């Protein structure tokens, strides 16, 4: 059985040597994606992996699927074209914090707004790696880099907040080295109909090493993150004794057994609820005030662009008297010259 899974996993690898830096978080994300495909048993030919520009965007070359490494920032638009042209394909978009949120911000929010069935994996390392270390739109305020030697004076985007602000219906977060969790959220993203955004907290070993360390380090991870599961209470911590409650309209971290708090008081995660209010609050939680939310934060249903586009064409085809080019040009105000 294990041997079969291994075989299935290898089937998604291309013949190209992977050329990311040793120790780069991208290797783990690539593995997780290939495992996801193997577990979902999608035929290789039905997969299209589309990327923009940046370290992450080299990923399509390493996949034995149809792949297109396009231009900086435009992957959402390219992928939208692929999906609308052939909705039978399962389309993955590979992008980074610069590609998706800086140069490609416009396409990113509009793909989400349209709710095209794309699975977007956003590698967030809070730095420009391929151009060797400039701050990105997700770098923390005050971040020092080659283009911000005195610290940045701008606030970062929070990808979850941006997704929900653009009317997104799926948002999940994982950590590069947590392959099991990554496979879990990638599978959920693939199954979700509509645009799915998966933010991966990715480590750039060269230009921004350990940027997520205070959250992702094994020593503190259990206390500083919370893995959300639909239908389960929002409990976290090494001792599994911490939880989230709603106080007024804000979230609050509590300890079970203190101040009369019992497990019953803890919020239960509802990923499917259409109202994004709580999802937004969960997505925005930051250490040290809160644990950082991982897992599927939002997974709600809404009409899907590519399905609706196809449906509309079928309906109009059915109704219209014009069935061919000939019908079109001979209908209306024509006259004969004899």
């Amino acid at each position: 059985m294990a041997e079969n899974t291994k075989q299935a996993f290898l089937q998604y690898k291309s013949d190209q040597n992977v050329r990311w830096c040793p120790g780069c978080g991208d290797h783990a994300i690539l593995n997780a994606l290939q495992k996801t495909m193997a577990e979902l048993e999608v035929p290789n030919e039905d997969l299209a992996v589309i990327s923009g520009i940046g370290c992450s965007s080299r990923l399509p070359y390493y996949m034995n699927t149809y792949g297109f490494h396009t231009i900086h920032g435009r992957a959402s638009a390219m992928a939208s074209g692929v999906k609308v042209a052939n909705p039978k394909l399962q389309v993955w978009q590979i992008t980074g914090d610069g590609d998706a949120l800086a140069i490609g911000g416009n396409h990113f929010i509009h793909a989400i707004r349209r709710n095209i069935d794309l699975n977007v994996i956003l590698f967030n390392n809070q730095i420009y790696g391929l151009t060797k270390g400039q701050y990105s739109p997700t770098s923390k305020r005050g971040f020092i880099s080659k283009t911000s030697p005195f610290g940045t004076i701008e606030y970062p985007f929070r990808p979850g907040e941006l997704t929900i602000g653009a009317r997104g219906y799926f948002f999940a977060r994982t950590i590069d080295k947590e392959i099991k969790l990554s496979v879990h959220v990638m599978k959920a993203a693939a199954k979700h109909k509509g645009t799915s955004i998966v933010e991966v907290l990715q480590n750039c070993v060269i230009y921004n090493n350990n940027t997520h360390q205070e959250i992702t380090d094994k020593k503190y991870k259990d206390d500083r993150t919370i893995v959300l599961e639909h239908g389960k209470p929002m409990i976290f911590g090494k001792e599994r004794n911490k939880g989230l409650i709603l106080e007024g309209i804000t979230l609050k971290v509590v300890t079970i057994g203190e101040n009369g708090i019992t497990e019953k008081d803890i919020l239960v995660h509802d990923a499917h609820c259409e109202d994004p209010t709580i999802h937004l609050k969960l997505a925005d939680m930051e250490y040290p005030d809160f644990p950082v939310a991982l897992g599927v934060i939002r997974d709600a249903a809404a009409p899907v662009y590519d399905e609706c586009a196809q449906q509309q064409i079928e309906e109009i085809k059915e109704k219209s008297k014009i069935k061919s080019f000939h019908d079109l040009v001979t209908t209306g105000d024509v006259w004969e010259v004899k």
Partner: protein
Amino acid sequence: MAKKSKVIEREEVVVRFSGDSGDGMQLTGSLFSFSSAIYGNDISTFPDFPAEIRAPQGTIGGVSGFQVHFGHSEVYTPGDNADVLVAMNPAALKANLEWLKPGATIVIDVDSFDDKNLAKAGYKSNDPIEEDNLSSYNIIKAPITTMTKNSLKDMGLDNKTILRSKNMYALGLVFWLFNRPLENTERIIREKFSKNPEVAEANIKVLEAGYNYGVIIQAGTPSYHISPADIRKGTYRNLNGNKAIAWGFLLAAEKSGLELFLGSYPITPATEILQELSARKDLGVKVFQAEDEIAGISTAIGASFAGDLAITTTSGPGLALKGEALGLAVMAELPLVVVNVQRGGPSTGLPTKTEQSDLMQALYGRNGESPLVVMAASSPVNCFDYAFYAAKVAIEHMTPVILLSDGFLANGTQPWRIPEEGEFPEIKPPFVEKPAEEWNVYERDPEKLNRYWALPGTPGYQHRIGGLEKDFLTGAVSYDHHNHDKMVKIRKEKIDRIADFIPPLEILGDEDADLLIVGWGGTFGHLYTALEALHDEGKKVALAHFSYISPLPRNSYEVLKKYSKIVVCELNLGQFASYLRSQFPDVVLHQYNKVEGLPFTVAELKDHFNKMLEE
């Protein structure tokens, strides 16, 4: 006893309808041209309207016009100057004086010539006829507003609806001037207002009232008669350049067996193509109104990768934004058609006016050595043909193609003969035929040098492409310097070889002419009409009009070398002339350029050519 009215037999006539941009002049002009076409005249039309949707009423800036040229023989342009001008207000009169033939007939709505409107139009006195010295013109002062109100006073309509139909009064009067029956127009009005029969009947009543006014005042007023033209047999309809482009792609989709995908963002004057194809869901067209110009082309490139006939439509500023993505299509060697309906530039420029100033941008406006095909339509109706052939070349040679149109072609109409079965060839997409194990992503057709198309969804042909330089054979990323050199050259050679698949350059007029006129794109009608006029004067002139610009037809040099005096005419400062010089450095080229946002006039061309012949 009434005098018998004069009936003037004419070969061709130009009528210009002009009024405020809310006066319905575009509809009036369209109705008149349709009726003339059905009558059997050849026609060419051109609307001229401000960029503002409703510019300040009564001002010159807000004047909207529609010109119709129709004739007993073939007509190629909407005409330089008008024989008949309908001016719905003083601004319309003032704005069009420059475009009148000597002794032209001017119909004015005297009711609108009040002090306020005269002042807005910039008249100093209350007598524009005197002020502009118009006594040599045949002026019909019709109380159009009053008469429209009178004829509708018993119908219980509100004042706004009544005033809106005064354009029909003017139209009726013009129909009388040309002895045209009203039936076809009445039928179209009834169809157009089928949901509002009251408005339809009001319009028809006013139309007839206008016609009857002509009958009553006919003493002393000339009436024109234009016999039907001798036109090729077939079924016809009126078509403008934008619609023709949309329809050309529909036929190309049918002939190639591919589904049609349009990714586009609205931009004047190209928007109508997007609108027309959006309405064609019945033919399965997938239209994606993108968030911007870049997404327009990017979705199209994605759709092309997935196997659709993919196009994007734009105008100059949009083409600038699409440059980087076009380079990707060059590198990935995917079929794509980019339509650029040119307008006045640079920057936002003159959105509703025509110009040919994007030629260099189309040829060279990308980073790197980035060759692609550039074609240009030359009449409103052959926009259909060139859209079809742009798609054919893009698909069969696996390359992006830029098709240039312009504001003049986009909005101008002509009668279009509906092509018969078999008139257009099949389009054969170069799908991979080899077994997957033997196939390499960048191996090429030995003759055309195109790579082959493997569509996502096909088992075994999984492959990766992208904007990084590709290995000559496998398509894997390659930074090898020899390989890059080879790829740069083969991409160029692939485009050059398309010259073997396009028609040779034709010479119109005298083979042994003393002057060769060279043009490209939308100026054909004016250049050809000028050539005919010179020919009638016994002058020896020829015209070489280019529709394929990159690559040039194989015989281009051979043709140019034959003539000692050559003038390249274009609506820019000499972009095509520069391009030709770069290709054929030993050919001496004179230039005739105009950059006013307007088409050439036949008269100015004739004058210039005559001067050149005398030199």
